């Protein structure tokens, strides 16, 4: 019995690219967007695991794979030691109850034609919890996300409440089934600064109170530092570095992680300034660079090996892993 909620092994998701009629006749083979390409990590109970990276790095796809909104091309996803990577809809249903997702945009993820009550209650109805119990659960969860008193909110439409409250409704909907694991996909990026902290503190409180584990997807390393216990940095579908948040941010080893950290502006005019060490933008995941995928932008490119050989993710101690030839022994 190992102690993890979710374990992912060599997970891959390749989306086929539609090519035009003539190209398909002329051949050249099927192209794929390698959104997630051989990713492994594990989330422990009560842990907030961060997944960071630029847009197009595959972090959202990973999140969706984990709750099986989409099926992996290959690789395994274990939820409480049960392999869920190829389960069908019927067998998956009882497991869906135990894992939920919160989407990025609370302005789009709530049905505008339903009352808050209908939105929060729907997962219960789907899983056959009705009547008095459903009502009690809705009330309880509304209290948990501090939408109090619940009576004030239950019969309002999403457009009648503020962005922060909407996101709390989304959190309530995810919590109502009392899941053990929640994927939070950039839950605060659409919210105003003054109310972000509210949602994040809510997440950490829920973790303490209900023992929920989270996969927290973000592009903001400063935010990740404040709420995640562990962190994995993704680049073009691959994890380039993972470890505890503190080690990763104070002693980053991969040049990409270092570049990401130095590019984050600090809200203090007297402290360090941003540095830009990396040129250009993230390449297309359809034709990722050979060898190390970061070699085209890497400031410490060490020669042919970077271009030809893909660096494995190696253990450098203290549960810290990095995929870079600089650190290969």
């Amino acid at each position, binding site marked *: 019995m190992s102690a993890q909620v979710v374990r992912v092994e060599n997970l891959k998701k390749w989306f086929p690219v539609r090519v035009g009629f003539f190209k398909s006749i002329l051949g050249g083979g099927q192209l794929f967007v390698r959104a997630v390409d051989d990713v492994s990590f594990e989330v422990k109970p009560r842990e907030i695991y961060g997944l960071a990276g*630029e*847009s197009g790095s595959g972090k959202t796809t990973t999140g969706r794979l984990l709750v099986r909104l989409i099926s992996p091309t290959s690789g395994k996803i274990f939820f409480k030691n049960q392999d869920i990577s190829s389960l069908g809809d019927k067998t998956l249903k009882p497991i869906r109850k135990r894992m939920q997702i919160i989407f990025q945009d609370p302005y789009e993820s709530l049905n505008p034609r339903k009352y808050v009550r209908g939105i929060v209650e729907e997962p219960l109805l789907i899983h056959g919890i009705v009547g008095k119990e459903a009502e009690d659960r809705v009330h309880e969860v509304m209290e948990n996300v501090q939408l109090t008193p619940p009576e004030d909110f239950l019969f309002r439409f999403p457009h009648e409440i*503020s*962005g*922060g409250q909407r996101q709390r409704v989304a959190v309530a909907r995810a919590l109502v089934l009392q899941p053990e694991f929640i994927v939070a996909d950039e839950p605060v990026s659409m919210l*105003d*600064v*003054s*109310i*972000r*902290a*509210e949602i*994040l*503190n809510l997440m950490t409180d829920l973790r303490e109170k209900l023992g929920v584990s989270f996969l927290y997807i973000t*592009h*903001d*390393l*400063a*935010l990740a*530092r*404040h709420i995640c216990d562990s962190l994995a940095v993704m680049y073009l579908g691959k994890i380039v570095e993972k470890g505890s948040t503190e080690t990763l*941010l104070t002693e980053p080893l991969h040049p990409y992680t270092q*570049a*990401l*950290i*130095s*590019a*984050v*502006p*600090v*809200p*203090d*005019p*007297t*402290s*360090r*300034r*941003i*540095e*830009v060490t*990396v040129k250009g*933008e*993230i390449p297309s995941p359809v034709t990722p660079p050979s060898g190390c995928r970061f070699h085209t932008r890497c400031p410490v490119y060490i020669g042919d090996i970077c271009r030809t050989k893909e660096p494995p993710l190696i253990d450098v101690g203290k549960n810290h892993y990095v995929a870079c030839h600089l650190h290969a022994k």
Partner: protein
Amino acid sequence: MELLNVQDLKTYFTTKSGSVKAVDGVSFDVEKRKATGLAGESGCGKTTTALSVLRILPSNGKIVSGKMLFKGLDLAQLDEEDMREDIRWQEISIVFQGAMNALNPVYNIGHQMTEAIMLHEKNVEHQEALERAGKLMELVGINASRLDNYPHEFSGGMRQRAMIAMALSCNPSLLIADEPATALDVIVAAQVLKLLKELKERLELGMILITHDLSIIAEICEKSAIMYAGKIAEYADVVSIFKEPQHPYTQGLIGAFPSITGKRVKMTSIPGTTPDLLRPPPGCRFHPRCKYAKDVCKTKEPEFSQIEKGHFVSCHKAVAEAKRQKW
């Protein structure tokens, strides 16, 4: 040297449900080679302030009162013709929010840039304009040969750079950048911010930087105004803003900002939400969310007062404390 001095600017919008006081008595200034930040949450009036300076408000918006002295000339009084011929682009230009989507997809970049130059400087020939466009592109770090490309052939960061190049095409002395780094990835955003900083030095530009992100203000600006519900809550040089914030709203915002350096502290939020500007709360507009609010805050609107040289704040508590009175 003072470039722009905005005094008590008021811009109201007429809507079906009444008058929205989007900007209600805003004063700040911009100096040559310096950047002034306008920071605040969505709906606080920062973009409206910028549009007022350029006088490009939507048709239901109107500058009700106030002065906007640009090199001694009051932009609020200038007629539309002069504004278009002498001020926009030639003196003041703007990089809009989501600038990467502000380019016209059916013309190549070169066409769009030369159009801007030739329209504003009547004596410039096409060839000369093209050469200038090439130089501007090099200035923002894009190869001049890419002028023949269409916007879809550029990445997000390059489009943002091209927009900045375009804004600089008639050598303005004041550049307004509205959320220049939002919607860009961390590394690309850092590249754009660094570019803006360099341009400010090299071209001796005055800059108004509009953002919701305080860390960007700390990065680029010398002075900053923190706006709340159409008013300036606090205005000072950035070091005072970050090190000795006096307004409870500024303090709250800074507490809500995570930092990647320093101690890991619990982030704080400001309870409640921003007010509806159709019916702003009486007295101090921040009082429903303020933990220090007293009766006077609910009835009397705080004046925008100077508590130290160059440090302005609209708050009864801060003013009282500056006079060493107990709150």
